[in-house]
């Protein structure tokens, strides 16, 4: 087992990992940029090192500095959290070449799944349904037109290296396909230095359903059920929940089984999430694998009782999963709300600044994962998340009632937050009825 772990991240996920380490009896070494110097959560680590100035590109994203910190911190492993370098296969490889275990999947599995075309190929060979589309990159316009007419319009043009909606276009006919191809490719070249695009059938009003996986180094793979993350705004998840509402039991089993199959096929290890879209007839299609822990992992922790961060660490240390598929329950209903320092009246622009007053709700089934406190200053340099409010109750109705109660209690003064939008979402009949799709927020507000 590791004695010391470096946490190559900041904020709430760094604190989450510090807590997991401490409960496992492992020492944690934190790193911080000058913008995060003095943050309370750093005091909770056993040691903390400044690795650079405020911009992430000069601190949290600098592999050299992280490896240096790992070396002077004398750690046996690095936990990358989410974001930053967490899905960077190069970083994972360098860590391991320096004899520091990367707490995440094998770097070759990361690389294979990080490329969308090769991920689709893995899915197909594992007999996991993908959205109909081109079998690989589109080489020219003629091929695109042929594929589009085969799978039928509307089609989606996607960058193979894409993410966050960049390099993505919907085309309803051949004219817009031709225009979109060029635009998407140029955007992808600019954003990811990779102009490769492929085509997919465009699924209208899809739900986003993802399956949490744990896979150890002994070949054991289990799923920890699904999360519904359909409440999104510009591809940013706002609310996540487990179990997914209105998903028939046999479909749910099929999706979870498909995810396990795909993960086994990819020779994947550690925690991962297999993302699907589900259409109105409950057909589901593989989208991508998130080869890391996710922001929304707490909802799965609540319904299964499994500490996912601890399991990540134990798996990386070579431990066997301490349970089998049959031992993984899904009890009650858990809903997570992300609370961001953003101005909902001003196009959700970031609202950094000092938190002058903070009242966090509590009580049975309430969890708030956050590194902030009264007096904390939200930095303009990083993401705007203040924290994640998680409600776990015996039923979905009770979880929604609990969430509404919490929203009435929550006070964050000093910065603008997404709390007003949250109240609207939880009061909307579409959410209460469980019929939200990924286009809902933009169509509604």
């Amino acid at each position: 087992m590791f004695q010391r772990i470096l946490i190559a991240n900041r904020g709430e996920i760094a604190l989450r990992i510090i807590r997991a380490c401490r409960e496992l009896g492992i020492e944690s070494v934190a790193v911080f940029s000058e913008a995060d110097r003095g943050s309370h959560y750093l005091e909770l680590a056993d040691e903390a090192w400044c690795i650079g100035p405020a911009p992430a590109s000069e601190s949290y994203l600098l592999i050299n500095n992280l490896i240096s910190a790992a070396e002077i911190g004398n750690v046996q492993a690095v936990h990358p959290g989410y974001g930053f370098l967490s899905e960077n296969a190069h970083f994972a490889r360098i860590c391991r070449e320096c004899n520091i275990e990367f707490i995440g999947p094998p770097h070759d599995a990361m690389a294979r799944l990080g490329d969308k075309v090769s991920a689709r190929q893995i899915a197909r060979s594992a007999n996991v349904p993908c959205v109909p589309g081109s079998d690989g990159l589109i080489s020219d316009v003629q091929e695109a037109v042929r594929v589009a007419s085969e799978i039928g319009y509307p089609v989606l043009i996607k960058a193979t290296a894409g993410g966050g909606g960049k390099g993505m276009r919907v085309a309803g006919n051949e004219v817009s396909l031709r225009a979109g191809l060029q635009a998407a490719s140029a955007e992808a070249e600019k954003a990811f230095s990779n102009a490769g695009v492929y085509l997919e059938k465009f699924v209208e009003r899809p739900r986003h359903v993802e399956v949490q996986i744990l896979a150890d180094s002994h070949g054991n793979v289990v799923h920890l059920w699904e999360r519904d993350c359909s409440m999104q705004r510009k591809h940013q998840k706002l609310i996540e929940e487990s179990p997914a509402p209105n998903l028939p039991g046999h479909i749910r089993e099929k999706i979870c089984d498909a995810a396990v199959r795909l993960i086994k096929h990819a020779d994947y290890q550690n925690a991962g999430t297999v993302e699907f879209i589900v259409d109105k007839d409950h057909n589901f299609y593989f989208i991508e694998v998130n080869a890391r822990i996710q922001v929304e992992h707490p909802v799965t922790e609540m319904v299964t009782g499994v500490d996912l961060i601890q399991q990540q660490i134990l798996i990386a240390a070579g431990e066997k999963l301490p349970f089998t598929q049959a031992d993984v329950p899904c009890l009650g209903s858990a809903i997570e709300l992300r609370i961001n320092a953003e101005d909902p009246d001003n196009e959700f622009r970031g609202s950094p600044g000092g938190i002058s007053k903070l009242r966090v709700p509590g009580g049975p089934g309430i969890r708030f994962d956050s590194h902030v406190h009264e007096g904390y200053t939200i930095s303009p340099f990083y993401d705007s998340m203040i924290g994640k409010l998680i409600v776990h109750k015996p039923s979905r109705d009770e979880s929604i009632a609990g969430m509404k109660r919490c929203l009435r209690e929550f006070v964050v003064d000093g910065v603008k937050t997404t709390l007003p939008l949250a109240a609207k979402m939880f009061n909307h009949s579409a959410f209460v009825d469980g019929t939200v799709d990924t286009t809902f927020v933009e169509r509604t507000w």
Partner: protein
Amino acid sequence: MAKSSDGDFDGFDLDRFRKLLQLMEKYGVTETQLTKGEESWKVRRGPKQVAEAPVQSPAPVAAIAPTPAAPEVSSVAPVGKTIDAPTVGTFYAAANPEDKPFVSVGSTVSADTVVCIIEAMKVFNQIPAETSGKVVEVLVENGDPVEFGQPLFRIE
């Protein structure tokens, strides 16, 4: 039911108030009114009333720090110029264990004088002084791990 307006539940930070009064005295100001967000300071100096400071609602110091009306006064004793670590890594005072240190107390440095090596990822980075002056103190030991921005030498 609202929080009492007389601030019964607040701690207090009189340092800022003191700074304000000192500034007012120094520059002969008799009346000041500062407002930022929900916070408001009003101070009048005169024979009748020393100070009046109605606080609309408590606000953290951090929220008022950038208030332009109350600039920082660095009345603290100067701590001297330092050469700081430009990267995280391991500090070496000399190129080789048997060599003399690049600089020591009394050495005079200019901007491009190499003052030490910081090893990061097996790469030995020669660190220039980036300033000029005389070394008056070496703040770290040979072989110490250093973090970004950590002062290494004190310069005069």
